[in-house]
């Protein structure tokens, strides 16, 4: 466990000492700020309109602002996650530092877990920025905190699972750009699988929709933790890390 933490700390050091972390934080701050502003403003305008028209429409910050906001943030995450995960192992292979890690008295699993954990913490730092944005609604309104927390948990789980797959992709190549591109394609693919619902409701469609990474976020944004979704995320994380372990091992046999 100590080794995992050592590797994780070193990885975070690299994120924050290089521009990657700061660029990502800046991009994310701008995007999530803009989304929060736009969605918040349309809610306020809807509030005015309902007052002007004299009919009192049911207004709910949680349903009309926070839930769509969380979904949007999750999509921004899809774009930024490959940028976080692409360097994890590809860079080690390019620099030859993988030789240091593999010849140290450390289990391969500890290396992989440390790497993945650091990426998850990096992603959590981005989400923390978003948490600042959303906290404004608590100053000016009275939203329910529970769906916010479950929503953020859902976003983190979704990120963790894409990062696990990204770690695997990163272990396949020594070129960060290639790892980033494949990781991005994978994230995009898992996202658009949910669009198949517009083609009816056959078993295949339901299956593809279950595979899609975004369809599992809905219940979280509504404040519900559904074991079906948690199992999906956990098994995807396991799959990603398992494939990474296999890939690292095969690297030694092929070399």
């Amino acid at each position: 466990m100590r080794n995992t933490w050592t590797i994780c700390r070193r990885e975070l050091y690299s994120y924050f000492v290089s521009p990657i972390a700061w660029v990502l934080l800046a991009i994310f701050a701008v995007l999530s700020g803009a989304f929060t502003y736009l969605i918040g403003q349309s809610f306020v305008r809807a509030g005015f309109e309902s007052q002007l028209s004299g009919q009192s429409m049911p207004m709910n910050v949680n349903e009309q602002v926070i839930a769509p906001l969380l979904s949007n943030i999750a999509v921004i995450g899809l774009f930024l996650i490959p940028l976080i995960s692409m360097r994890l192992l590809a860079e080690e292979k390019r620099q030859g530092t993988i030789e240091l890690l593999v010849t140290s008295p450390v289990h391969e699993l500890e290396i992989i877990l440390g790497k993945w954990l650091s990426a998850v913490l990096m992603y959590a730092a981005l989400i923390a920025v978003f948490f600042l944005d959303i906290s404004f609604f608590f100053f000016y309104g009275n939203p329910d905190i529970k769906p916010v927390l479950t929503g953020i948990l859902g976003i983190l789980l979704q990120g963790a699972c894409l990062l696990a797959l990204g770690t695997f992709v990163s272990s396949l190549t020594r070129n960060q750009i290639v790892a980033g591109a494949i990781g991005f394609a994978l994230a995009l693919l898992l996202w658009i699988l949910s669009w198949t619902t517009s083609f009816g409701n056959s078993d295949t469609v339901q299956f593809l929709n279950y595979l899609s990474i975004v369809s599992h976020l809905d219940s979280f944004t509504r404040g519900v933790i559904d074991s079906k979704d948690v199992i999906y995320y956990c098994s995807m994380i396991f799959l990603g890390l398992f494939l990474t372990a296999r890939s690292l091992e095969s690297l030694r046999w092929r070399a």
Partner: protein
Amino acid sequence: MIQVEGLSKKYARHVAVNNISFTVDKGDIVGFLGPNGAGKTTTMRILTCFLPPTEGKATVAGFDVFEQPLEVKKRIGYLPETPPLYPEMSVRDYLTFVANIKNLPSADVKRRTEEVMERCSVADVRDRLISKLSKGYRQRVGLAQAIIHNPDVLILDEPTSGLDPKQILETRELIHNLAGEHTIILSTHILPEVEAVCQKVIIINKGRVVATDSVDRLRHRTGEGAVQVQIDTDGAADKLAVHQRLEQVPGVSKVLEATGAAAEKNLIFEVDSLPGRSARADIARAVVQSGWNLLELKSLTYSLEEVFLELTGSQPQAPEEVASVESAK
């Protein structure tokens, strides 16, 4: 300390290491010598548990590299051909990280980090980023990384490649100082390095061990006691007279006249001594007493270079091994 028996590493289309065996005793400095692509790096990678062997067995400090890799890894310090450095880290942070990952007790990490920085003379750049360091400093940080957990065995893959002459000398000095506490295997294709640093040589070519011997014995294998004598013709020296005089010197077994451009101007002879004797002093006295001008008297001891070429040049070449020359890395 290290035992290798019948070790092979085969890839799909070629054999990088072919059935090699050797042992290294505790405290030895062993030079692993061979041309580029001979299988040095592959062998070292097997010993450090980076690559699994295809066949054969290797044990380090009594632990099998395949069965108990963690135990082996604890006892080995490894400097790969390119030092495994994170350019974005400072020297101190990097070494602290390595100390932690090598499972040093937390209480010792700081002290040990300082110690190896002093030892490898990188203490003056401890807060600099590795990306800003020169090649020589990087190599030394790499060496510091290898010895930080005080391993029993040090495996150094071309520790002096790419350094300038001064740095090469410093690095050799450092390796020399590390001897005694550690058993060291270092690979190189530079012969003077082996002569300067190692006690024992393992010569490897095309994946096979060609010779295992001590440096001295290897050098003595050919041509000990042969001397080249050069005499000025102005001193009224007659070729025949000189030849005869040299043959009469006690201890001399054979006198040969040298040919070539230099032999046009001056008289040059190659003189062999009887086994176990060196007639150099007597030759010099004989020449001077005869009134000839002695220009040069040099020992014809073969350099390791020649020994090496002789040993590796005459190896039969199986067709499958031709490809192995390049891709052993």
